[in-house]
């Protein structure tokens, strides 16, 4: 029988995959992808908890996460395009202007 732990573990694994992506990617677009992976991982956990505790709050949060992802894409892609026009690349190493 599949329990909550199964879903949470899958969610944790996917989250870690996303984390690895965030850490090793240098291309901003790929970073965005990795972020989406992490968001989706969290959504799985939310839906699973919602199901197993019979409480809709988890699903609500998943909805809001999706809404946030949508806003993030709208703004983030705009920034990416501006960056690309300005620097001709999306590589993070080229954008390190803020050295402390």
């Amino acid at each position, binding site marked *: 029988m599949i329990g909550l732990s199964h879903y949470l573990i899958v969610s944790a694994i996917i989250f870690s995959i996303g984390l690895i992506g965030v850490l090793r990617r240098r291309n901003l677009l790929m970073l965005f992808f990795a972020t989406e992976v992490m968001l989706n991982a969290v959504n799985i956990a939310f839906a699973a908890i919602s199901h197993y505790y019979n409480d809709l709050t988890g699903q609500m949060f998943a909805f809001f996460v999706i809404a946030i992802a949508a806003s993030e894409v709208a703004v983030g892609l705009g920034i990416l395009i501006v960056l690309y026009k300005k620097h001709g690349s999306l590589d993070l190493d080229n954008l390190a*202007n803020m050295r402390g």
Partner: protein
Amino acid sequence: MENLVYIALFAPFVSSLFAALFGMSQRQVFVGIVASSLLAISFISSALLAIHLYTTGDVIHVRLMDWINAGDLHIPFGFIVDQVSVTMMMVVTLVSTVVHIYSIGYMDHDKSFNRFFSYLSAFVFSMMILVMSDNFAGLFIGWEGVGVCSWLLIGFWYHKADVTREENPSISPSWAANEAFIMNRIADLGMLIGLFIIYWNTGSLQYDEVFAQLPYLSETILTTSAFALFIGAMGKSAQFPLHTWLTDAMEGPTPVSALIHAATMVTAGVFLVIRANPLFSMTPEVSFFIASLGTFVAFFAASMALVNRDLKRIIAFSTLSQLGYMFAAAGLGAYWIALFHLGAHAFFKALLFLGAGNVMHAMHDELDIFKMGGLKKTMRWTWLYMGLASLALAGIFPFAGFFSKDAIIETAFNEGTYVLWAILVITAGMTAFYSFRQVFLTFHGDERYKEFGIHPHEMYKYVLIAMAPLAILALVAGFGMHQYEAFITNLLPEYHMSEHTHHLVVWLTLIVSAFAIGGILLAYVKYAKGLKRDTKLENSFAYKVLANQYYIPQLYEEFITKPYKIVSEIFWEKVDLKIVDATVDNIAKTLYKTGDSTRSMQTGNLSNYLNWMAVGGVVLLVIAAISAMLV
């Protein structure tokens, strides 16, 4: 009727806001006219309310809204129009209407004309709140409101620079304004404490509820609260030892002196004692202290007025002295007499000040009466007004001052406090003397101003006409005393002379009048023919003490201001710099060092930052896991 209450209350507010709209712009005469009209509307409403109250006897009590509703504390924004407040409303709105019109002429050449009207109307609004509120909280708000407006108006010419005390005893308008404000704050602390005690013990600040609870309170509480409230009254009404600000407040424009520092605001202290009369009648010790202090101040202020050379300061000292009379009456339980004197005094004192304003205007802001004289020729109307007001102040029959002051002196006799009575009688004589010293020095004798190249001229016509109501009232107000007694004693306790006093009343009146007339005669003999300076007298010790206000301002400066400054400096150097600032600096230094040493982490590369973030996240996770295992 309810609408009239709101009109009377808010017309000055509207006027203030309207004038404030033009506060930064050029002088606009219509601002003054609109403000005066609104004040006149307020006055008419008050008058209608007074007539209504006089004919029907209905006390109007309105509740605008719930103001504070927190926990057990319920303070509504309520207003009451009863015999006491309607008297005050009449006095305040009448005098302020006259002063507003007067100011159109007086402030004619001032570039901050509009701003002046805004402040002046704001003051009237605060004063109306003070007198109309049905609870101590509202009274306190008005109390602070008039304080702020007074500060603004005393310091109206804030751009004038500070000078030494020898040159000008009040140093500068802004200094005087600050002095007034700070002294009032000190006194307000007393008042606040009084209010807290009252609220703590009765659970309310509504007048009626508080007074209904008084019989159940212990002696100590009553005495403390009464005394604390009286400290507030002392500050606002400039009683000794908080009196120095009032004379310095003469730095403000003369209409301000007339309205605020003679007729209305300074009487707020007396009003408070009258308003809280149930409390004060239950605390005879405090009441007697009030009476004694009032008598002392009456004499004390009059003595300083004897030798002063500054036209406005003389009137200010006389204000102090008359306030002393009012407190004496209130302290002796004759509340309605105190209120009557308050009203009568407002009329003739405002008139006196406005007259002084005319003189000032004519003399190009010169205030030294030794440099005046013979102004009667050019300023006939002003002479008439000031002479009339001085007669009223001196208490000569049939002027208003005669009736009210005589009643106070009779009260002192009636209560068996013969010492107070004697002092008050002597003071009456002194009052007459200094008033007429001033009139004679200003308007009679040789024209000393000529050597200063001044060409005096009479004030505008409309200003003189506007002053007429005050003159008429100063003349006839006394005859309404019996009707007023019947009216006011509906609310205030009645006060009757004993049989014994009644028999002697003619003699008492004669004694007082004799002193007054004697004072006038003395002044006539000494000054009517011109100024003959008596250097021997002027160099005598007593004269110097009086001229320097008993050296009290100097004492304050020496024993309060200077030590305070020294203590402050010590604290600044020892505590603030070495402990507080050092702590803050060290925190900053630590942060700087930490930042310096960890700066290399900031490569500007988002990837590195993300790595660090992940390290932090993993550490947190591990901590969470370990703590979960431990629990």
